[in-house]
Structures are given as C-alpha cells and as structure tokens.
C-alpha cells in the first residue's frame, strides 16, 4: 500500500540515500522532494488529527518519515544519519516557506512569530520570528558550518543530542558544546534584531 502511495519502493529510497551520501547529486535531487512531500503530508495529517492516540510531541516527525519511506530496508547507520540530515533540511525549508507564505497572505506583511509555548512570555525571547531565525542560521552557517548543521538537525530535524551525534558522526560531548555555543550565538542575533 505504501509503495503505491509513495511512488517509490523502500528499497529504491534506500539506494537513493546511499547514492546521495556518496555525493550523487541526482540521487539527492530525487530524494529531497520525496522527503519534503512526505514530511508535509505527515505533519498536516497529525494536525488534522487523523491519527488519534499518537502525539506530535511523542513522535519525532522525522523518525516517522524515515519509517514510512524506508520501512524495513537495512540501511547502514551512516546512511540513516544522512537521511536525517536531509529530512532536517527539508523541515527547515517547509517551515520557513510557510512562515513566508503566511506573511504574504496577511495584510501589511506582518511577520509570523513562533511562540514556544502559546501565550507564554518570559525573560528569554520565547517568541521569535522563524524567518529571522532562518536568516540568522544562514549567517551562522557562513561563519561556522558545523554549528549551523547541529542547529538544523536538532531544531528542525528534532533529533536528540545522541541522535545528532550519530547523524553528524561526532561525539555527543562535541554536539553539546556546539549546541550551547550555537544557541547563544543565535539568541544574541535574535535579541539584536530590531523586529
């Protein structure tokens, strides 16, 4: 059933992931929209409450996409990690596109703020502009790609410290350090942003 729905067999997806990891641009180009579409569909389905009993919080979307796209295909762990990296990038793209579209829909082009907890305001900027964060992350990527990568995988991919360590092939301690510095750097950028 899944096969027909996705238009790609899990094995084909697995081979795409492997080829993409080896630097095959065309494989990556085929894989990206696949992941992107599946993520969008799945996120929307969750929010439309099609799946009672399952929670968005408890299930990392990216994991779910992985399971749906690859099923039981045995991927080497490096490939699995690579897949998560791709998924995180897709998630970033989806969310930022949506934020941009929302702003365009609104009269006056008001920016969309993401509130970490609805209605909650705290001394730390718990509410921020996703587009501004995305811009800041792009600047961080120019300064230090390693740090930006960690943020992308952790924040947009929703992976834990350990999973991120696995995905980026470095130790969890290193990820923790990079994560601390990246967060501080980004928050400072957001605080100095006039909007």
């Amino acid at each position, binding site marked *: 059933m899944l096969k027909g729905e996705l238009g790609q067999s899990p094995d084909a997806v697995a081979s795409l992931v492997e080829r993409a990891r080896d630097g095959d641009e065309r494989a990556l180009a085929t894989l990206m929209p696949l992941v992107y579409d599946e993520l*969008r569909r799945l*996120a*929307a*389905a*969750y*929010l*439309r*409450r099609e799946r*009672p*009993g399952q*929670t*968005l*919080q408890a299930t*990392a*979307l990216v994991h779910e996409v992985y399971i749906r796209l690859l099923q039981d295909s045995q991927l080497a762990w490096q490939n699995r990690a690579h897949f998560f990296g791709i998924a995180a990038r897709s*998630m*970033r793209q*989806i*969310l930022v596109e*949506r*934020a941009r579209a*929302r702003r365009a829909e609104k009269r006056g082009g008001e920016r*969309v703020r*993401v*509130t*970490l*907890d*609805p*209605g*909650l*305001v*705290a*001394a*730390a*900027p*718990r*509410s921020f502009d*996703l587009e501004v*964060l995305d811009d800041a992350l792009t600047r961080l990527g120019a*300064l*230090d790609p390693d740090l930006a990568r960690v*943020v992308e995988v*952790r*924040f*947009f*991919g*929703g992976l834990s410290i350990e999973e991120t360590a696995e995905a980026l092939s470095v130790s969890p301690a290193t990820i923790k*350090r990079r994560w*601390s*510095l990246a*967060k*501080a*750097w*980004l*928050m*400072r950028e957001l*605080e100095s942003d*006039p909007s």
Partner: protein
Amino acid sequence: MTPDEWKRVREVFDAALDRDPAERAAFLDAACAGDARLCAEVVSLLNVHGRTGDFIEAPAYETAAHLLADEAGASLEGRLVGPYIIRHEIGRGGMGVVYLADDTRLSRRVALKALPPDVGRDAARRERLRQEARAAAALTHPGIATVYALEKIGDDLYLACEYVPGRTLRQVLASGPLPAPQVVDIALQLARALTAAHMQGVVHRDLKAENIVRTPAGVVKILDFGVARAENLSPTHLTEQGAILGTPGYMAPEQARGQHVDFRVDLFAFGVLIYELASGSNPFSADTVPATIARILEVDPPPLSSVCPAAVPDLDRIVASCLRKNPAERYQSTHDLVADLERLQVEVSASRDRADSGSRPGAAARVARASTPRWWWEFHQLTVSAVYVLTMYPAWRVRSWVPQPWGLVFLLAVLACAAAATTLRLHLWFTSRFYPLELRGQRGLALWWTRVCDAGFAASLLAAALATGDAHPEIAMLLTAVSIAAAVASFMIEPTAARAAFNDPS
C-alpha cells in the same frame, strides 16, 4: 571576524563553559591574554548562554505547528464538533482558535475555544486546565464571562464559554483615550468583577485590554478568568524554573521576576489598564519584551495627570497605588479598591450634574479642564506669549526715541528675545495638548532657553525705559511695568504653576 578569530572564540568559549562559573573571569583574563575583542565576544556569548533556557530546545515542528496546521486547513467552520455546531471563527490567539458555536443541547450560543492539540494530549496540562476551569466555572458575576464546560471531544480539548458580543478594550482603545467618566465607570465594573473572583480565590493573572469586552449596552466583562493562566501553562519543568507567565506590558514586577504571585498581580494589571484607558498608551510598553520588562521592574510611570490633562486627581492616586512595584504597597484588598472607585464615581457624576445644570452644553468639560493646575500652566504659556507679541508695538515706537544706533539694537534685542520665548512657549503648549507623554522631555530642553530669553526681554525693556525716561515718562513707565511683570512671570509664577501641574521638585 576571520575564521581564525572565530576558531579562537570557540575554543575559549568551550573551555570557559567547562569551568566553574566562579573561575571563569580569571580564566578569561588568562586565555584572552590582552585580546580585548576576543574577550568581549566570549563574554557576550557567555552572558547570552546563561539565558538561553529553552530557546529552540523543542523541535521546530512542535513550536511552529500552527504554520503546518494552516496548511492542513484545520478550520472547523460549519462542522459539528460534539454537541456544538461551529458557526464561524471569531478570534485566534496563542492559545488556539475561538469559534462562535451553538450548543445543540441547550440551544444557546457559546464561544468555543479549540485548545492547541498539545494541551489536549498532555495529561498533566489537561488536568491543570481542568482544575482551573472548575474554579472559573464557579464564578458567576455579570462582569465575568462564564465558563460553561471543558470538553474533551475526540482527542482534543474545547473550552465552552459565555459568548460576549461587543468590542475588546483593545479595539475601544484604537480610537484613543476615553473621557474620565467612562474610565471610572469601566474601572468600577472591572474592580467589582475582580473582587468577586478574588473572594473565591481565583486570580486572573493575564488581565489585559484584549481580555476585556465592552458590550454595546456598556457592560464590561472579563474573559478567560482563571483559564488564561492555565492555558498558558507550559510543561511543568518550565514553571518549576520560574518561567514568566502573562503579557509583558501588564505583568507585575513580582510576576516578571518569577516570584510568588497572588491577587495583587491583577491589581497591577488593572492599574496599567486604567492608565492606558485614560492616557491612550501603556506606561511600560517598549520596543522589545526585555525592554518592557526592564521598565516594569525599574521605571515609575509619570503620574497619570501629567500625561492626561483631563484625569481626575483621585484616579491618579488610585492608579498609582495599583502600580506600586512592591505588592505590599498596593491595595491590600480588592474591596478597598472598589470603595475608592465608588467614592470617585459619586464625585465625578456630581461634578457632571453640576455642570449639566448649567445652561450651556459642554460646560462640564470646560469646568473640569479649567480646574486643573495643568490648565493654568497652559493658560500661562499662552498669556505670556500674547503679552510678548503685543509689546512689539510700543517697542517699535520707542526705537526712534532712543539715540541711534541703540534704538535699533534695542528693537532687535526685544524682537529676538520675544520671538524665541514665544515660539518655545507655544511649542510647549502644543506638546502639552497633543503629545502629553513628551512634555516632560520638551520642558527640560526648553527651560533654560526660555529663562534666558525672558531675562533678555525684561532687561532690554528696562534699558529702553531708562533711555527714554526724560522725554517720554509715560512710555518709560509702561516699559518698566512690562519688564517687571515679565521677570516675575518667568521667575516666580511660571515655576509655581509648573510645580503644581507636574509635581516638579521645588
């Protein structure tokens, strides 16, 4: 920053984090070895690091779920949800979407709030919300929108509340500040509603202009009582760390500090709200949330009467008491607040009645305005300006009687001083009438120059009087009189009027 410099920042930052906070300063001194830029960058990042808290800790697809939800077309309009038929969306906020709905069981109209999915799915939050809703549902007061039910329909939570048609105070405020009698009326209604809730031990904690609706009949109702706070509740770890709840512009200092809060936070928010209704602007609002919080913690807003000429002096005192930084200095019971407001309302309506009994319409406004020290101060500015302008005519005549070139010097000196002093005064008058919040700063800027011009004006007139005294004693007397009057007005009357109007230190 070059890649090498950044690499160094990273190393020092990581190493500093590994150390005990107490040892960091010493470590940084050693590690930066006189490189001030490096040191500044690391210190700045370490400072922010201490405050990052939960920043971007939750995955983006959770925090930005609403962006995806839109795409899912999650609108419920026209659908049947449990026993409710959804009519249309009436509001949308951080805590979910609010619909106007019909309750088919009781055929009554309700405001139905679809709470964010994650609230419904988190057992602890759900339980907390249920407790709050139970307490709020026990409140029955005409000034409080009743909570009917907290319903779990399918996987989601809905809060059914009394539907209150009308405009929120935020919408009311969009057309500017309200006249004093209306402010007092709203204040009294709100204070009575708060009393009813506080007596039952229910604190709103998120009172704001958006949460209060005035019906077309003029009844004021508070929305989201009790539940505003519960809806905002984050997963428990957040509150344990003392996360701050509430809307920044209305947040009491103790709330901003994450300290224990009680009913007195509502009194603080009430004070801000009344200030805003009377003056048209929130006394603490700043460009950013941290700046707003800093103002709440540190800045005492100017007295209401100094930003709002029409304010009643007693309201000034009531609002000031609510806005005390220390909750122990605020009203210690909402009853006392109601009692003060009731007295004030009697006074306000009595003065209105007095004015109404006068034959001319609009007399009330004139009486109210003419009686304030601020009005006298404004009047003083206009009068002095008029006298200066009128003095130009005798000055023009006198110039030919004074031996040249002193005649021309005299005329130009008087003209320059009068022009500058008049312009400054008219500027202050205009600011006072139309930009009251900026008056304090503008007065500070203009004060010294006005004094100098006044002194120059008086001195020039006195000199001309001496020079023409022999030939034209009557003109000399006039000039001397104007000169003395100008000096007295500038150095005695004006400071006194300003002291009365603005509570200036003497």
